[in-house]
């Protein structure tokens, strides 16, 4: 018999992740082409709380608050949301391979963004269209699955695949008719995923749907445990399976749509981070949900730092998450030890 062996308790892992996240945030402020040393940074941040005589340049302060702060926040929020959405979908679909794009939210967002670029919209219009189409896609998936015969969970996933491929075809068509000198590169770049457009206003704006989606997921996390047992068992335990699943799916979709609409396609986070967290804290969503959120934030912040500092030009973050995510996932599934 094998015991569930964990070197540190799940509660301690959560504390460690919190400390790690705060450290990562602090260090991220100092990284970039314009050097902001740790000492100056500490005083700049401290000056917002208590009065300090300024010994740093105004540029430094501007960079910290207007450029790095929104970007760091956005990286954390998007990482947190994608990871939370992935772990939630895995629970309610009882499927370890479920990821945030399972119901077509990502391909809908891609189509919306491509359309926005084709129509020559501003960045705000592009974000808005991506968000709207993301929700439309998932709505369509729901509508189709309601009319399909068979097990509801299965038809939901199947219609997700179908509608996804439909919108991917739509995106391809837009790329075909787009102006190859400026629109096509813009679309391609958007599809590769990037946080480079982060502006304070945008971050504040997108935080609203993210918070609306994340809070119920945190609150309902014990119920997600029960849902992983399967419908019959969960129902006979007294859990309203239909309601809980719908709420979780809507919340997970909302945060996915909000994330991809500002960041473009960032793959792997929603699959790899939840699985890594399963190894760290086990499958109990009481710890797994917050652990996934924290780790997702740390991970994407780390990758975004690489993305903006690795080369002279920015490397799209979607490429990096795939480069890091795929080999890491292979390591995770081939590693010896207890399968979860």
């Amino acid at each position, binding site marked *: 018999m094998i*015991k569930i062996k964990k070197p540190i308790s799940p509660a301690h892992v959560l504390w460690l992740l919190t400390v790690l996240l705060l450290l990562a945030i602090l260090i991220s402020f100092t990284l970039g082409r314009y050097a902001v040393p740790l000492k100056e940074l500490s005083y700049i941040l401290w000056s917002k709380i208590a009065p300090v005589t300024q010994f740093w340049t105004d540029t430094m302060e501007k960079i910290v608050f207007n450029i790095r702060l929104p970007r760091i926040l956005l990286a954390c929020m998007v990482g947190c949301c994608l990871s939370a959405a992935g772990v939630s979908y895995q629970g309610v679909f009882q499927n370890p391979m479920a990821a945030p794009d399972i119901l077509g939210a990502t391909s809908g967002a891609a189509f919306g963004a491509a359309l926005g670029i084709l129509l020559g919209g501003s960045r705000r219009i592009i974000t808005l269209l991506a968000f709207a189409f993301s929700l439309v896609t998932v709505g369509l998936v729901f509508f189709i699955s309601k009319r399909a015969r068979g097990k509801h969970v299965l038809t939901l996933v199947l219609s997700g695949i179908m509608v996804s491929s439909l919108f991917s075809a739509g995106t391809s068509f837009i790329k075909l008719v787009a102006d190859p000198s400026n629109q096509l590169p813009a679309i391609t770049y958007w599809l590769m995923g990037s946080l480079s457009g982060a502006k304070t206003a945008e971050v504040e704006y997108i935080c609203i749907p993210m918070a609306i989606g994340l809070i119920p997921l945190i609150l*309902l996390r014990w119920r997600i445990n029960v849902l992983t047992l399967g419908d019959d068992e969960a129902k*006979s335990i*007294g859990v309203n399976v239909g309601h*809980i699943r719908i709420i979780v799916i809507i919340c997970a979709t909302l945060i996915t749509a909000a994330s991809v609409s500002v960041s473009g396609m960032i793959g792997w986070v929603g699959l790899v981070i939840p699985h890594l967290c399963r190894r760290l804290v086990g499958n109990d969503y009481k710890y797994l949900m917050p652990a996934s959120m924290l780790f997702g934030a740390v991970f994407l912040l780390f990758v975004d730092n690489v993305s903006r500092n690795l080369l002279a030009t920015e490397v799209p973050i979607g490429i990096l998450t795939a480069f890091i995510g795929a080999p890491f996932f292979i390591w995770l599934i081939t590693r010896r030890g207890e399968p979860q």
Partner: protein
Amino acid sequence: MSIAVKNLSFSYDANQVLKNVSFTAENGELLSILGCNGAGKSTLLRCMLGLFSAYEGSIEVNGKNIRSISAAEMARQIAYIPQSHYQAFNYSVFNMVLMGTSSQVSAITQPGNLQKKRTEDALERMGISHLSKKSFAYISGGERQLTLIARALAQNAKLLVLDEPTASLDYGNQLRVMEQAKSLIKDGYTVIQTTHNPEQAFLYSDHVLALKNGEVVGNGTPAEIITAELMQKLYNVNIEVHSLYDDKVRVFIPKQVIL
């Protein structure tokens, strides 16, 4: 705690699975439901648990129609103990049992100290406290079955519905699980199980229901139902029944073996 099933019929599309099934399980009895594969046993359990609702007839728990009872209320009356099966995600034995208490807290809260105490008591009652921290996927089949029974106890329901509890267990574990089921009767629980083992049903039951093609073909005490004639009819086999120890035990022998 009693359950009364009256004129229950159920169909999957055109295929009628249950035909006019009526019986009552009284408080404090162990009812075994016998029948060959496809006789409608599982469908019957699902209807009783409120998992299927498209049936005709009525099901009453303590005189109350289950259609008028909420899911959470149902969970406080009836607990389901499924056959242990593959699960997408693995939990500790403690958490598996703790999940049984979910209907006792609101949807947005975690089970608290009261629920944890109930979980510990249920593990203690089933004699598996030592497995508490072990992983559900890596304990034996018998231990898994006891864990699922413990979950039903933590759920605080007095009517336990077991779906072939001993089907995939070795001989020793079959006896241990049935002994536990029997001892729960003494504590005031009502137990309903489906089984493919008439000898075991005879040994442990107070009441036996025999189903064939969705119809009740026998409903009474084990001595009345578990007879050579009815078992031959039920399973389409040629058998001989021997009674031992003043009819405390009945042994079934396939005739082709001794001819």
